């Protein structure tokens, strides 16, 4: 077994860390018995790792505990505030979603207008429309999507109309993504703002929705979070807020979000 030096070092380190499986450990131990150079290498690597733990434990002694406790208290207070707000918002979203279902989903026109005084801060607004969409999408499953059959020409007409409203080119090519089938495109409203919602069925997972809202404001980058059993990410770009949400693993949502973001990068 001819191993490169790097591989031998890695094997020796894994051996020292107790991470080799029994077969590889026994093989290495046999070689160590006969090979003085290998043994010396093992000892040198062992010595190099010895002071690490203690060195880093010294960091715990200098951690600014008082400030960290204050940071925790601040986080608790903020979380409390967000929770109260989200609860009220979820009730509104649930009511609106039920209404949507009762009216038949195909050409649904959804209005979930929340009192303006709730939006004390921009991030609360973000929080609220995300919560509203999450509440709505959580009522769908693969079967409810299968029941939606919109003729292709109608879908394209809806996309064109929505594109005009949010001021973006929403051609079918641009909003077609591998592994997803566009089922419906519709106009929703939140707090007086138009939202284009594109609802997709995914090959391997549950429903996925892409929402685009025209709203001025800064640029932000998304990261994946979970809500109501769905994974989602939202970001702002060139005066539009994007929300991608779906019943799919976080890494799928993340990679899909990259594709969506790059689809809207140009033009």
């Amino acid at each position, binding site marked *: 077994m001819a191993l490169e030096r*790097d591989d031998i070092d890695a094997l020796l380190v894994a051996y020292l*860390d107790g991470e080799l499986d029994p077969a590889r450990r026994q093989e290495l131990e046999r070689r160590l018995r006969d090979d003085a150079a290998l043994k010396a290498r093992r000892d040198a690597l062992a010595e190099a790792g010895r002071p690490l733990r203690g*060195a880093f434990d010294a960091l715990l002694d200098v951690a600014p505990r008082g400030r960290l406790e204050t940071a925790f208290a601040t*986080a608790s207070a903020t979380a409390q505030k967000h929770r109260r707000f989200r609860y009220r918002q979820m009730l509104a979203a649930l009511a609106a979603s039920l209404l949507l279902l009762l009216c038949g989903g195909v050409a649904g026109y959804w209005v979930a207008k929340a009192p303006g005084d709730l939006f004390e801060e921009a991030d609360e607004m973000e929080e609220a429309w995300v919560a509203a969409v999450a509440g709505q999408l959580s009522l769908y499953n693969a079967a409810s999507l299968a029941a939606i059959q919109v003729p292709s020409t109608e879908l394209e007409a809806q996309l064109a109309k929505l594109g005009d409203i949010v001021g973006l080119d929403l051609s079918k090519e641009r909003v077609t993504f591998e592994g997803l089938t566009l089922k419906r495109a519709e106009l929703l409203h939140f707090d007086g703002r138009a939202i284009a919602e594109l609802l997709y069925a995914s090959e391997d997972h549950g429903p996925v929705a892409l929402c685009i809202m025209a709203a001025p404001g800064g640029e932000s980058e998304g990261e994946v979070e979970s809500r109501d059993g769905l994974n989602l990410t939202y970001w702002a770009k060139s005066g539009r807020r994007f929300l991608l949400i779906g019943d799919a693993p976080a890494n799928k949502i993340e990679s899909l979000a990259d594709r969506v973001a790059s689809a809207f990068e140009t033009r």
Partner: protein
Amino acid sequence: MTSPSRDVIVAELPALLPRLWRYGLVLSRDPVAAEDLVQATALRALERSSQFVAGTRLDRWLFSILRSIWFNHLRAQRVRLGHGVLEAEDVLVSDGAAQIETNILAGQVLRQAMALPEAQRETLLLVYVEGFTYREAAHVLDVPIGTVMSRLAAVRLKLGGLEVSATKTEDRDVE
């Protein structure tokens, strides 16, 4: 509206604050950014307490949150704002927490370890300091176990002043 998971987090997170800060410091090499990371981690953990599975390890869960905030948000933001990612030497001269920094980097081993590339630094902390198994570390870092092995070998070679081949500076997998 409390939940069992939330109660566990509220009760147990405060004791983990120094370890979270240390992880934030190893990632960012900036004591102030590490504090911000701890606060953001606490907030996210409380807001998503329902995702924490009671009976599993809270520290592991919090570490993944902190890591995700760093790589998905704060780190990118620093680069975007032109701050870049701090080099070890910058840590010594950056203002605001000079006292802490002096203490932090007092130890030579620590100074050398903090000067390692980000991926090696983080792997070293998780495995040698926080006691993650290779498998657990590979999972959190989202790399093959072979990469964890080669990173730790590179760490020991550098800190031990042993012969380092050119390939050691890059991640490679070992089977």
